[in-house]
């Protein structure tokens, strides 16, 4: 009973983190958010990062998303050393390699769906005609072909999250980083969004899911548990694990 999952060859390494730490100085106190995390993520993986609040989950996500740089340790993204990059280079990585999906959608409220999805392409310097075509196509891909000129307040929560996903996808990023993507949605809409992410994964995208909900994490093929700034466990999801073992 082999499913297609285990048949996939493992792709090249996209994210290669070795022993990274992050600490913040807050007043007199130093907070050690990450105490030495080592993690490798391959192309076309579907990974969930779990952990209670205060586990360093958000810090790790910011780090993976190149919004922040580690205090120590090595972080390579597609073979490039991120820890040594300046702000502009980080911005370029975020623009081209990473697609963010946030719990609160984070769309620009006064811009249409199309305009929101175009935004990463604007910063990438793509010409207006190509940009609009690509943005419109991506919106159609996530099922919002009819909502191109609607503003966020004219859309339902699920539709807004679809716009956000389209925005994350539009630049063909190496990873999609979804932070509690269903946190502000009812469970039915949440399932629809998870189904959309599953489709994206099946289509070859690499997805990193940050969540504290086991139900949501269950959609991923691999789950990393964080606790107190360290990786507590890193395992393939049950079904996958069996298949993988059987295959090796």
């Amino acid at each position: 009973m082999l499913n297609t999952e285990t048949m996939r060859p493992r792709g090249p390494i996209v994210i290669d983190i070795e022993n990274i730490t992050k600490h913040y100085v807050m007043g007199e106190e130093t907070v050690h958010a990450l105490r030495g995390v080592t993690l490798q993520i391959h192309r076309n993986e579907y990974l969930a990062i779990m952990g209670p609040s205060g586990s360093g989950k958000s810090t790790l996500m910011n780090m993976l998303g190149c919004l922040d740089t580690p205090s120590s340790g090595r972080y390579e993204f597609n073979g490039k050393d991120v820890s040594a990059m300046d702000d502009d280079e980080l911005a370029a990585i975020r623009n081209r390699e990473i697609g963010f999906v946030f719990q609160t959608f984070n769309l620009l409220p006064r811009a249409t769906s199309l305009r929101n999805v175009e935004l990463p392409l604007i910063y990438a310097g793509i010409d207006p005609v190509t940009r609009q075509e690509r943005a419109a196509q991506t919106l159609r891909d996530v099922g919002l072909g009819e909502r191109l000129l609607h503003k966020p307040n004219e859309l339902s929560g699920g539709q807004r999250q679809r716009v956000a996903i389209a925005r994350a996808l539009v630049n063909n990023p190496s990873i999609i980083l979804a932070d509690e993507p269903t946190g502000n949605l009812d469970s039915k809409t949440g399932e629809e969004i998870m189904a959309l992410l599953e489709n994206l994964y099946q289509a070859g995208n690499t997805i990193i899911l940050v969540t504290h909900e086991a139900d949501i994490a269950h959609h991923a093929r691999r789950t990393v548990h964080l606790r107190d700034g360290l990786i507590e466990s890193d395992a393939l999801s049950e079904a996958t694990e069996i298949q993988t073992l059987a295959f090796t």
Partner: protein
Amino acid sequence: MRFREIITMAVISLGANKLRSALTMTGITIGVFSVISVMTAIGALQTSIESGISFLGSNIFQFAKYPANVNAGGRAQKKYENRHNISYRQALKYYELMEGNAREICLKSFDFKGQAVYNGMKTTPSLTVAGSNKSFLVANSYTLAYGRNINDEDVAFSRSVIVVGKAVEKRLFPHESPIGRTIKLNGHNFTIIGGMAEKGTAFGQSQDDICVIPITRFFENFGESNRTVNIATQSFSQELYNTTLDKGMGAMRIARGLRAEQENDFELYSNDSLKSAFESIAGVVRIGAFVISLIALVAAGIGIMNIMLVSVTERTKEIGIRKSIGARSRDILRQFLTEAVFISEAGGVLGIIFGVIGGDLLALWLKANLIFPFGWALAGLIVCSAIGIGFGFYPAYRAARLDPIDALRFE
């Protein structure tokens, strides 16, 4: 990022807060308006003066007790008041010395409180009465419309004859010809021998409320003490102007009885000196307008800075979103700076439009030619850009410096 993109973004953001943007813009508009309207009005007057409205006829210079810019004030004013009047006798001496060296020599003395009466009808009580000779019309750019001019005999025999301006004719003789009629001027009878063509207004004052009588009659009827004579001299040609001026200066010094080491105790003015007198007044007004509008613009700039700081705080989340999807610090900087410059420039353009309209309306009222002050308009736009950049930079820099994680977390 493309320029058009940045402009589009700025317009969208500013459009979201229309009232606020408009109010901020108004400050700049007022500042630019004040400088542009004044510069337009002055420029219009200046071109008018240069292109025709001459105070004097062509190739004419004039000697007088007071300088053209009579409002010099202060100690200088005292100096002029203490001078002896230029007497008719001195004027005649000058005339004698200069006769044959000039085309026209006009001696004139004025009274500005004349009133002419005819058949129960009256002119304004501030009619200009000029006592002069045959050269008055030419020397003051008037032309004779009908009848005859004052001649040498009229002066020699101090005849009670009068040449009237258009306004006098209109008031006293709406339905008949004034020639040969006798009018009463401040209680004295005068027979009208001629009328002047209409000259219109200059600087809001009618130049047609005037009449000319022989200077000898003027002194007999209105007194000679406390009156000074102005002497206008017209050279034979443009080429001879400077030579004539030199001769005139010498003749005037002799007439005034000055010794070689004594300074002139009279003023020379010509169209050039009148122009430069105007220039010096205009210069002061310009500096005043410039300083005032600069202060207004700085105040408006602080307004822009204030509103941009508010805007950056309000839009922290937006900045976080933009940064998370790949906006570089300089993209954010440029975006906010563009908004500041856009407000400033839009305000500036409105200020220029209103200023030019306002200034030209003033010029129109003063019967001057209309102009568009390109130089000042351009300077206005440049100053507006500088203000937008100067006062917009700090808020934009703050926006650009925001940490993306903190900004995203901002609610």
